[in-house]
Every structure is written in C-alpha cells, then in structure tokens.
C-alpha cells in the first residue's frame, strides 16, 4: 500500500527549505536563499506556505538596520518531514522489489 506524499512537501523548493531547516536550529532568509539558489520572491512565497501549514516558524525582525527573517522548523514540520521521507522510502522499496 502506497503512503500518500504530502503535496506541500512534494515540491522542489519547499522540500529544499525543509531539508535545510531540519539540519539546523534556525536559519535566516539570506542563508536559505544562498543554499537553494532560489529567487527572493519565489522563496518568500514558499516560506509563507510552509509557515501557514505550521511546518515552520517565521520571525521577522531587524538586525541592526537590516530586516531579518529567521525560520525554524516546528515539531509539526519535523513529523511531516519524517512522514514524507518514510513515504518516499516505501515507494522506492516497492521499486526495488519489482
């Protein structure tokens, strides 16, 4: 039986953002943008989607005079990410069996 893939995570940029945030305590927009190579506009939209789903926590503030957006994965996000990886594994295992 296939596990359904979380549509929110089954998207290249959102999955990349989650993969970064799962491996750190927190990271800001500049760091995530540098690692993903995404455009600021697109990244901002995808971060909003993840935040609306409760997968990540976004804190907008200032560092000195510069605006700073810091993102952190939530418990719900960690669970969703684990579920997504397990679902993918189940697909790949079936492929291997065939």
């Amino acid at each position: 039986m296939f596990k359904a893939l979380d549509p929110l995570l089954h998207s290249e940029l959102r999955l990349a953002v989650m993969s970064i945030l799962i491996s750190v305590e927190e990271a800001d927009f500049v760091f995530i943008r540098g690692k993903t190579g995404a455009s600021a506009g697109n990244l901002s939209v995808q971060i909003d989607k993840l935040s609306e789903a409760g997968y990540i926590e976004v804190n907008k503030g200032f560092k000195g005079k510069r605006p700073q957006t810091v993102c952190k994965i939530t418990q719900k996000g960690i669970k969703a990410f684990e579920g997504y990886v397990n679902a993918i594994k189940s697909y790949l295992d079936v492929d291997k069996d065939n």
Partner: protein
Amino acid sequence: MEEKTMSEKESLELISSMIKKTQQNLENSNGRPFLIWGYTTVFVSLLVYFVVSKTNNYHYHLLWFLIPLIGITLMMLTRKKRDKKQHVVTFLAQAILKVWTVVGIAAMLVAVGSFFANIPILGIMLLLMGMGTMITGLLIRFNLIVISGIIGMLFSALPFVVQQMEQILIFGAIFLLIMVIPGHVLNYKSRKSHV
C-alpha cells in the same frame, strides 16, 4: 529552483544534497573563542602578577574581572562582523554555547564567592574551564581540545602545591597551553580543510 514535479528518487537526492550543502559551511569549527579567552586570561594573569607583586596591594586582584569584560567585548565584536552576512544556528553551536554559559555563570559565582570565603579560586577556575574545554572537544570531536581539557582539570590541584603569587604565573601558562595553542591548531586545521 522552481516548483516542479519530482520523482521519489529525485526527492531523496534533493534532501540529501541540501543537508550536505548546509553542513559543509557549518563544520568549520573555529578556534577564535579559544584564542580570545586564552589570550585575555594570559594577559590579565601577567597584569595581576606584576601589579600585585610591585604594589603588594591585594585589592588589585579585582583586575581579574577584566577577563569577562575584555572577553565578552571581543566575542561580541567578532560575532557582529561574522553575522552581518547571514544568520544560521546549528544544534552543535547551540550546545557549545549552553555549555559555556553554564561554565561562565559558575566561574562568576565562584569569583564573587571568593570575596566572602577563602577558596582556592584559581584551582576551581581551572577545573571549570577544563570541564568546558573537554566537553567542547568531545562535541566537535577534536582530540587536542579534549586533552587540553583534561590538562586543565589536572592542574586544578595547583593551589595546593604552589605558592600564591607563582600560582598566577602558572595559571596564565596553563591557559596558553590549553586554550591559545589548541585555538591556533583548530584555526589552522579549519583553514586547511577549506582550501
């Protein structure tokens, strides 16, 4: 990077490549904090030794409080410079910060306590700093730092075997050994691995 449909294999590859990419920049453990606290302690130890032995005025032991003052200022200055570009906090950095926060608070409490009770303060400081150093070494998996921590803890017996004024000089020398030298080695290795 766009929003496109991926196969399961591509998904897994993306996850592992992003995690790897993230870790690459972050594993450059740097020796700067060791150098800042090491050199500051060596400098203040020499200062206290010379001022107290010249004047015989024990009030100058208050100069020890220059260590947190100079150390924290230098840490903040160097941190600001580094964090201007981007901000990212790893679990490891967070753990190390917490260890040193506890060690720092304990050291301040001992320092304040020494005004009220006759305690072997330099020995206790070496024990605390040795513990912090060893835990850091274990966390970043760097044996030289682990050994430095053990040496620091070993020398905590210092006040029981050496006279008071000489203790200060040896205290400075131990910091040179357990913080300054490993700090430089750590920086050298970090630079080498990023060439």
